[in-house]
């Protein structure tokens, strides 16, 4: 007979959920910043290269 400690399962579930949430949040911020930097660099280039 398997005895399940629901507190441990729940805690584990919450930890995994928190990890996934933080992972996606950090990734989103990182890629958004990277994208912004690429745009800024291209704008600077266009100010030079357009003339």
């Amino acid at each position, binding site marked *: 007979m398997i005895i399940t400690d629901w507190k441990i399962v729940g805690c584990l579930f919450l930890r995994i959920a928190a990890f996934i949430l933080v992972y996606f949040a950090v990734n989103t911020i990182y890629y958004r910043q990277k994208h912004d930097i690429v*745009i800024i660099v291209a704008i600077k*280039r266009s100010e*030079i*290269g*357009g*003339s």
Partner: protein
Amino acid sequence: MLYIIRHGRTDWNDRKKLQGQTDIPLNDAGRQMAAEAAERYKDIHFDVCYCSPLIRAKETAEILLNGRDIPIICDDRLKEFGFGIYEGTENSFSIPDCPVNEMFFHPETYNIKVEGGETMDELFDRTGSFINEVALPLVREGKDVLIVGHGAMNSCIVCQIKYDSDRTKFWADGIPNCELMKLDL
């Protein structure tokens, strides 16, 4: 030795408009920049100056070499990159599908020919022909040659001489207005 410099500022530079081959004169700030550059580089020896025929480059060359007995020769191959119908576009990045923007993101793969404009291959061909037929023979004779040009055109010359035409480095050197760059040929 080969030297290269970009023209002073224009009103279209200030308004972030794509100039390309549209003939826009220097503004007061641009003339001031050229005069300051003349003072800064007065001790550098030049035998001859080759210049883009566009007025902003010609004015820059004239101010830069004012009072010095150096011939200024215009060469069509030193014109700015042609952006065709997109010349005059203000802040092209506010137009998401503006095709010429790609040139500033990925110069190594950009080879679109917009209406009235030119391709990167054409820019490389004409500037390459200038380097091989004009600049290189003079430098080999021991002459000091000055080129007065534009952002993309100068970048193309620098890319060919400094980076062996590696287009991923097309924008590597920045090319600010009125700052002299020395190139080893």
